[in-house]
């Protein structure tokens, strides 16, 4: 048996056909909707690499069934910028050297983007707590902290 799933992804209504009911939102995004930006690194919600916004909430797309996303608004890393310009948090990840292999980056960007929306001036302890569900194996997190601090500073100076 297969199902049809329709959702709005990065502002665009999209439909996936022939979805096996056991597929996750992550699989549908990556393999059926041509959006491989969200990464699969553990498939059990431990690493945060597949983090997306679902109805404005941060979720691990690997833990969401495709059917559960029916009708939902999804934002992935591909939708953080406006198509022309990167979002501030994307720019500061590059500028601060927070990207090495980059496999964790899409999930971290979504989580950090959400944090800065909720708390434009987070303390270091708050940043650490917010990003605690996103594993990075390359950076030791120092430059990721720098990138989030830099994004907070840039957004407050341009606001």
């Amino acid at each position: 048996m297969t199902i049809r799933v329709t959702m709005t992804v990065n502002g665009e209504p999209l439909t996936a056909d022939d979805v096996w009911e056991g597929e996750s939102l992550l699989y549908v995004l990556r393999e059926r909707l041509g959006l491989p930006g969200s990464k699969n690194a553990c498939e059990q919600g431990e690493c945060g690499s597949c983090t997306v916004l679902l109805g404005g909430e941060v979720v691990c797309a690997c833990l969401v069934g495709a059917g559960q996303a029916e009708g939902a608004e999804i934002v992935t890393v591909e939708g953080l910028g406006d198509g022309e310009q990167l979002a501030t948090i994307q720019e500061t990840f590059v500028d601060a050297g927070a990207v090495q292999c980059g496999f964790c980056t899409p999930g971290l960007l979504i989580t950090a983007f959400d944090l800065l929306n909720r708390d434009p001036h987070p303390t270091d302890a708050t940043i650490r707590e917010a990003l605690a569900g996103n594993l990075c194996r390359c950076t030791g997190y120092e430059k990721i902290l720098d990138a989030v601090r830099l994004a907070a500073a840039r957004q407050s100076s341009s606001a």
Partner: protein
Amino acid sequence: MSVSTDTVRRTPGGVGDSPVRPDGTFKVSGQFAYSSDLYMDGMLWGTTLRSPHPRARIRSIDVGAALKLPGVSAVLTHEDVPGEKVYGLEIADQPVLAFGEVRYQGEPVAIVAADHPETARRAATLIVVDYDVVDPVCDPREAVGHPFWKQVHDEPGERTAMSRDKAPVHPEGNIVRHQRVRFGDPDAATADVVVHGDYEVGMQDQAFLGPESGLAVPGEDGGVDLYVATQWLHVDRRQMAGALRLPEEKIRLTLAGVGGAFGAREDLSMQVHACMLALRTGRPVKMVYSREESFFGHVHRHPALMRYEHGADREGRLVYVRAHVLLDGGAYTSSTPAVVGNASTLGVGPYVIPHVAMDAWGVYTNNPPCGAMRGFGAVQAAFAYESQMDKLAAAVGVSPVEIRIRNAMSEGSILPTGQVIDSPAPVADLMLRLEAMPLPAPAAADIRLLPGGVSNTTHGEGVRRGVGYAIGIKNVGFSEGFDDFSTALVRLELVGDEPSVLVHTAAVEVGQGLVTVQAQIARSELGVERVTIAAADTQVGSGGSTSASRQTYVTGGAVRAACEGVRSLLIERAVQRYGEGEYRLVDGQVESLRDGVVGDIASLLLDGAVERTAEWRHRPTHPVDEHTGRGDAHVQWAFCAHRAVVDVDVELGLIRVVELAAVQDVGKAMNPDAVLGQIHGGSAQGLGLAVMEEVQLLDGKLRNPSFTDYLIPTIMDMPPMRVEVLELADPHAPYGLRGVGEPPTISSTPAIVAAVRAASGVDLKRVPIRPEHLVAQGSRH
């Protein structure tokens, strides 16, 4: 003569700058294509059936039911391997697909291609393998104690072209390699102060985030194209050619985006399997390991059992070291011989020691195969020798910093192998700089910053602070006589009236920033800002492995050499046009040293592009003698030192690392931001080994193959770092640079353990530290 760089115009984004990564924008926008992101119309999904037993004889394999499942295109076993049935980096002993016997849990037995990954997984469960289970060899002491009893292998494997030249290897029995180092007269040496210790290092996983994956596409010529995440394209291809029975030129590898490596991609994983399925079905085949499969699908860091005895005079000056290091290589050879080489030749640390007797063994067991991981043999020994140095400091009544300074090697010192350290070795300086750094504030009031963190286990009662120091030594590049080289093609041409450089190598970017540094070298050497780095593939000569902290050194050397060739040709054109004289290329201009700017680079390129390919190798190294360890085995040494500050809840056995400080000599910081990134990331992996990371085994079976149960440091576990970088040029290396990636992984582990010992008073002998080591049988004093 060199001129002060302050007064000389430089090309922006060159050597010593920190330009942003050329792949950065792609990586933050989700556009960067990792090996698991690849897609082709009509592609199939491959999956692997693996042995559930650490050791068993295979009576039969029945694939009939699996083949009948709708959607399944192929089910292959060892009988379908077209060529050599075994492969390996140094010894060809690892089956492409198991035949006769499986020797570790997770060994590949059969592969499936189907139209959906779930179909492939279900088909794999329908394959019937009849196993005759045999007791596995799980204890490396058992393996080495009885070399001809309970052999893991019936027959020795064959040396490959990758074997270190004349490196002693003993595939007979269970001993892969036994390397002795004898220096001075260790049997006769006596000392006033003697300290002993037994130490153990658990099995660590590289835990890169991007699982093993790739896409194999059958070619019209009967060959195959493979897009894959790896560490060394050409050595993959060599092994694949044997297994697939294809000439190398019919196997075309292109590097796909790599989600970290850290050694785990040095051995083959899905490369041959995906190509077998693609060649059999005539369709593209994608294979992507799950996290669980990834734990079975790559080698790990060798666990180690070590016994050390240090003798010193009353002032703590070392007289002798006697050491045994036993490394569990698991079921197949992988790079165990080279790991033993490092553990033995570097196994007493960066100290001057008159008498040394070191024995290091790598052995076969039925545990998971172990091989390359960041630090490669130097990590395990450093935990032991640094623990010993702290014991010695306590025994003679001096500080941990002072004991290391009193014994520090320096330029001109002689290693126990007899090799002279012929470049800066600022061991004492690193320790002094660490000690001079300010200490962090006392334990925090914020409970998130206490041991136990957000679990809210303490408000500070039972929390004790400790400080620890450690330093390590690591060789850079491939050692022991290996012909270690890289190849670079550099072309300078006009693109839309602007001079532009193309750099093409097969050297693998795994996240460390090699693409950035290659472009920086081209900018500095050719005075051109616009540089494109071509995708790494096998259409150009080998780049060597992205391991051993070697790529900036060796591929960097190749890029520089190719640029020098291009520059010479361009300067010939300048001489023809502007007359005899000395010229340099900088910031798009041609400068005469006498007359200043005489023209621009673009105008010299109107006559056509200039291209050069260079193969570049570092100075030769040599094998070591099997019985004495004598030999100039290494090309370069790198040093990093750490100070760790920890808070320990001595009642609950919980640890919080409060701060890590590091000082590292990098020779020349080619890209200062990237250097910091390597030191931060390497230190974090050392922290993981100290306090949480272990592949846990029971009777040869993995107990924790997931990120739920195998813990790596989160942003809550990793403390703020203070880092100081020294640039003491190595006269033998390009730009004076020193390999950067591995040293920080080596010393952070023993520094953290020393700090935990200082806080808790417990004589810790094993990493990773578990709570029960601190609170159960703790011999507090």
